[in-house]
């Protein structure tokens, strides 16, 4: 896009699941870039493919799912690798997963093992990727433990020496999510994928976790892909936003443009339909008519056209390509250009 090389570059990614009932195209031609140190927000409703895209980046797609097309170019110290070409269980992928690209999952309760202390689980990750801390030298357990205590302190857990010997079920929701963030940071990742990290926690705890992530991002300059369905969280966290619907990118652009000058009818409708803390109360909200289509019944053409207020005849025939729309955005919509996505 410009002089700075992207850290991660996803091009025309397609992931499908061959189920007995039919083929589900969960991700259907998604493209976006993540710049070094950038917070990229990915918004979308359930079934839009945001989580599957992230699992594809980490090569964590379970059978019968398969990456059928596209590239996931990730820039490392020794050049660019295409993660889509790597075997999920290969040494190269294992070297990247959890170390250079780390994940903060939605449900920290499910992500930690209940039979090991949280400290042990983080120590294990550090030992596995110890070269991220000390290149070319073996690391001892006590050293890894010291690093873990330091990480706990970094993410604002009080009494870290005691807390690392706790089990995940002994921690409150907020502490558990902080411990999860400490684990994600344990191998100094270049890219952090946060998959709905605050959806399962209360609003005051969410504010604490968001403040922590913002602070860590500034301190370490880690790039973050922040996935959420909460437009408020996106507005406060991201600098660049990707809006997804049914496995495709509808629109992307700088956060201010997305919120104040949206180009795609889906983005516009989504923004109008959320109740705000300032608007008029007890009046009908503008809605997006219809329902999210069932994954087996993908509409032909633009996936949003059956619910789109501005749909035209050609929207049901051809899939619009993601194209630049002045001044700053990209949109896949025939209102703004004529380009058809051939696939």
């Amino acid at each position, binding site marked *: 896009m410009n002089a700075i090389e992207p850290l991660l570059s996803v091009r025309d990614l397609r992931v499908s699941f061959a189920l007995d009932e039919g083929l589900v195209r969960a991700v259907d031609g998604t493209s976006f870039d993540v710049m070094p140190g950038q917070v990229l927000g990915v918004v979308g409703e359930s079934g839009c493919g945001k989580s599957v895209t992230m699992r594809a980046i980490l090569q964590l797609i379970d059978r019968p799912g398969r990456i059928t097309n596209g590239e996931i170019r990730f820039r490392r110290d020794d050049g660019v690798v295409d993660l889509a070409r790597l075997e999920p269980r290969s040494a190269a992928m294992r070297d990247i997963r959890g170390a250079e690209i780390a994940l903060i999952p939605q449900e920290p309760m499910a992500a930690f093992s209940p039979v090991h202390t949280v400290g042990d689980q983080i120590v294990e990750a550090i030992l596995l990727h110890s070269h991220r801390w000390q290149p070319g030298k073996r690391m001892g357990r006590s050293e890894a433990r010291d690093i873990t205590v330091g990480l706990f302190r970094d993410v604002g857990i009080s009494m870290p020496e005691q807390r690392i010997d706790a089990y995940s079920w002994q921690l409150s929701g907020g502490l558990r999510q902080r411990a999860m963030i400490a684990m994600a940071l344990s191998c100094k990742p270049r890219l952090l994928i946060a998959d709905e990290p605050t959806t399962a926690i*209360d609003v005051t705890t969410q504010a604490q976790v968001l*403040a922590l992530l913002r602070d860590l991002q500034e301190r370490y300059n880690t790039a973050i892909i922040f996935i959420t369905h909460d437009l408020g969280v996106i507005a406060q966290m991201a600098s660049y936003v990707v809006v997804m619907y049914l496995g495709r990118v509808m629109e992307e652009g700088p956060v201010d443009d997305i919120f104040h000058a949206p180009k795609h009818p889906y983005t516009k409708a989504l923004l109008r*339909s*959320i109740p705000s803390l300032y608007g008029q109360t007890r009046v009908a*909200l503008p809605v997006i008519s219809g329902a*999210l289509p069932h994954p087996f019944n993908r509409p032909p053409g633009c996936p949003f056209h059956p619910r789109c207020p501005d749909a035209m005849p050609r929207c049901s025939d051809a899939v619009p390509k993601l194209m630049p729309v002045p001044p700053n955005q990209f949109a896949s919509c025939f209102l703004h250009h004529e380009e058809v996505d051939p696939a």
Partner: protein
Amino acid sequence: MNTETASSPLLEVRGLQKFFPITRGFLQRTVGHVRAVDGVNFTVNEGETLGLVGESGCGKTTASRCILRAIDPTGGSILYRTRSGKVVDLATLSQADLLPLRAEIQMIFQDPFGSLNPRMTLLDNVGEPLLVNGMKNRRERADRVAELLRLVGLRPEFMHRFPHAFSGGQRQRIGIARALATNPRLVVADEPVSALDVSIQAQVLNLLLELQARLKLTFLFVAHDLSVVRHISDRIAVMYVGQLVELAPTDAIFRQPQHPYTAALMRAVPAADPRVKSGDGVLGGEVPSPAAPPSGCYFHPRCRHAQARCKVEATALREVAPGHFSRCHFAGEMVF
């Protein structure tokens, strides 16, 4: 709390308590209590929506379940004015006396997937409350179910299908149709839109507002999402560790919250506008356990305005402006 104007309330909750025993050992001796709801007072007027907000574990769901008598309260009274105009105490009624009132008080559940029987068609799911309430004729039931489905914006032909054929938003509509089957007067909605997608939430909120106007329903709307509660409620009650900390008309509470917890809750909501920076003054610490609440004001360990008095002196809900109640010692004297 004698707050109300001329219109007598449909529901008046006084000093409601629900304690869950903590048992230990082989003999299951009671060693303490979780004070899930501890002396809650509020009224709900006919035709209004009272929003009940708070974080998880604050007792909002327990309070609403007590009102439905899904669980038996430990103490307090729940005065309900029946259709015939008589005021009864739901807290002490026997199951037999409660039965005729069940039709008048209904519930909408959070989870549109767990709350419908997957082995029953919509006709049976929505028609079951009718059957229980004595509508034995199947054709009559089918007519009523068709009417209900139309009411919530679904096609009557759907009644022979099973719940799995419907999306989350449609299922929530089915749950609403079932709640309305017996012509209720009071509907308790526990997080009715929090499991729905953003684009579907607005549809269901609009439906609830429309049904309320059409059927003169009274809602007790339990939720954690402040912007949703603000949108739908006439008045809002905020709970913290089993107690009501603030109760006021929606406009008043958002214009000038009179309790520091309410103010902190509002500040914690991330604004859906990148130009509005929110999340400043993040509330530190964690919600205390209702089994061992702090001394004095329950909020004092996290309150940035806390003073020596807050640590020792328990607080009570008091009226600081007409219809505006707060549990803070300094309400009315400070801006939070």
